[in-house]
């Protein structure tokens, strides 16, 4: 192992070692004081985040080109570590309140973040597969973490069966790509593809790979598991899953398709177009009928996967691909903060045994907890894409990139589905402000802090989006 190998995987190594040690330290922490484990795991995430941010601008490749630490992976890793921190903050009070507080929760979360980070850094399909499993297996356990509840068990089983099913497609896709190109390394695939004509084996392999990733990021038609799993899993887990798994899945999809397969872009662009449009339409339309807030946000997360996938549609067009991918990354950031905030409010209102999750339970929230209602309004506006929120800026960048690439109809579908989405997001706001009721919300320091921070980010960044977009553009520059 050389120096550069070590530098490349140091962020991942720090977090892995930290998680392993924490697993042992947790044994010494008494059952009633598992908050210490939460703080220690947050510390580990913060240390890794600090180290990752210090690496901005560096670019190293290690292990014979199997992993890399470049601008793109640093950007994505920073976002993943932030979502890990938000995930811990949301879980802190929630799992105590729900009676499922165990130290393993936090270590599993750390291991999952490790897998996600590795996925952003992978430049070899073998590492992509390993990272995908490393992020998924802890999530299967986390989804079933409330093991005395049928819903949680069921969510765990469904997530597991469909997750394993999708990794079957992924591995077979990798096998066919290996057969077509004689290698699993992304750089070597690029080299091979540029010197030969595309083969059927490669196209089928890429399609199977797309199915595998499609399941992970929940795009139509591979979304069937999403509402059930997101509804059944403990809410703090759902909040983390909707963000973390999506970021990692899109990061790997981006790296693999944008770097390795520009030669089959002509076929793939149409596929991405259809999937993106179908995801936006189905996600938003299905959300209209929901009366359970967790299910509503689950369909909303499907819809947002469709918006993010828009960024991939022009990936064969060399002149616009960098801007469109940067817009996709920006949208991911916007989605992560808004999403965590919205789930934070949901957690504040949730009671034991799945009570407090119906939309009607939000009636009268504005009178009783004005701050919470105001925060929820900000998040809902951001999810629709209305000012003054980061969601609007994200959509503007995204639609502009897609229109520049000549996919005007896709942008129109995007705008129209956003209008549809306004119906159900605003319904939450209307219920909070116009209806009378007696909602009881849990106020807890870390939860309030998370909601406040995400609400602030959602609003403040919308006034100064240039720096973030500039960072995202710089991050993707070296990808192509």
């Amino acid at each position, binding site marked *: 192992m050389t120096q550069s190998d070590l530098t490349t995987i140091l962020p991942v190594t720090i977090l892995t070692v930290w998680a392993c040690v924490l697993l042992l330290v947790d044994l010494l922490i008494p059952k009633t004081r598992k908050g210490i484990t939460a703080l220690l795991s947050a510390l580990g995430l913060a240390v890794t985040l600090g180290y990752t941010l210090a690496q901005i601008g560096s670019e190293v490749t290690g292990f014979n080109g199997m992993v890399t630490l470049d601008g793109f992976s640093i950007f994505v890793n920073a976002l993943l570590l932030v979502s890990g921190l938000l995930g811990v903050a949301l879980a802190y009070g929630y799992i105590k309140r729900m009676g499922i507080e165990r130290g393993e929760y936090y270590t599993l979360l750390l291991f999952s973040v490790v897998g996600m980070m590795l996925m952003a850094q992978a430049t070899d399909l*073998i590492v992509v*597969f*390993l990272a995908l*499993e490393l992020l998924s*297996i802890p999530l*299967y*356990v986390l989804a*079933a973490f409330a*093991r005395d509840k*049928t*819903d949680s*068990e*069921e*969510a*765990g*089983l*469904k997530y*597991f*069966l469909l997750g*394993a*099913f999708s*990794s*079957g*497609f992924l*591995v*077979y896709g*990798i*096998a*066919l790509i*290996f*057969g077509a190109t*004689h*290698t*699993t390394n992304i750089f070597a695939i690029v080299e091979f593809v540029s010197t030969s004509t595309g083969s059927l084996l490669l196209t089928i392999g890429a399609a199977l790979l797309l199915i595998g990733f499609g399941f992970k990021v929940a795009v139509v038609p591979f979304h069937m598991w999403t*509402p*059930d799993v997101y*509804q*059944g899993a403990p809410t703090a887990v759902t909040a983390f899953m909707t963000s973390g798994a999506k970021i990692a899945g899109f990061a790997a999809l981006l790296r693999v398709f944008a770097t390795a397969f520009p030669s089959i872009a002509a076929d793939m662009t149409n596929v991405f177009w259809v999937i993106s449009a179908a995801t936006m339409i189905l996600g938003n339309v299905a959300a209209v009928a*929901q009366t*359970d807030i967790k*299910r509503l946000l689950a369909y909303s997360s499907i819809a947002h996967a469709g918006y993010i996938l828009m960024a991939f549609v022009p990936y064969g067009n060399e002149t616009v691909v960098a801007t469109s991918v940067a817009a996709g990354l920006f949208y991911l950031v916007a989605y992560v903060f808004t999403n965590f905030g919205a789930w934070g409010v949901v957690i504040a209102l949730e009671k034991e045994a799945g009570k407090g999750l119906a939309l009607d339970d939000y009636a009268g929230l504005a009178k009783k907890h004005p701050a919470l209602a105001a925060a929820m309004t900000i998040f809902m506006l951001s999810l629709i894409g209305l000012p003054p929120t980061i969601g609007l800026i994200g959509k503007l960048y995204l639609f502009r990139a897609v229109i520049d690439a000549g996919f005007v109809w896709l942008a129109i579908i995007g705008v129209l589905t956003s209008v549809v989405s306004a119906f159900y997001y605003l319904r939450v706001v209307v219920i909070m402000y116009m209806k009378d009721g007696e909602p009881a919300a849990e106020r807890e320091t870390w939860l309030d802090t998370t909601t406040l921070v995400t609400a602030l980010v959602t609003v403040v960044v919308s006034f100064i989006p240039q720096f973030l977009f500039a960072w995202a553009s710089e991050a993707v520059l070296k990808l192509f």
Partner: protein
Amino acid sequence: MIPVDYYIILSAILFTIGVLGVLVRRNALIIFMSIELMLNAANLAIVAFGSVFESFSGQIFVFFVIAVAAAEVAVGLALIVEIFRSKRSIDVDQVSSLKG
């Protein structure tokens, strides 16, 4: 020597049987076995390609897949046992309290 095409055709057949098994069967254990069949179909293809290309990376990859499959078995069987304890059944059609 048997041409590589034969291996690939066999692996494609195994993979298809696996996919169909997941879609058609309703017992969680059988679904799980079908998923393993998919993974092993991929393993067969990778090993066959690897031996034709005389590259070791294929063989190494198979070891990784086998190890990951074992980890999945550990988690998956635990989940299935847990479901069986509370429902006395592992029929996935009966595992349907979440709907909408």
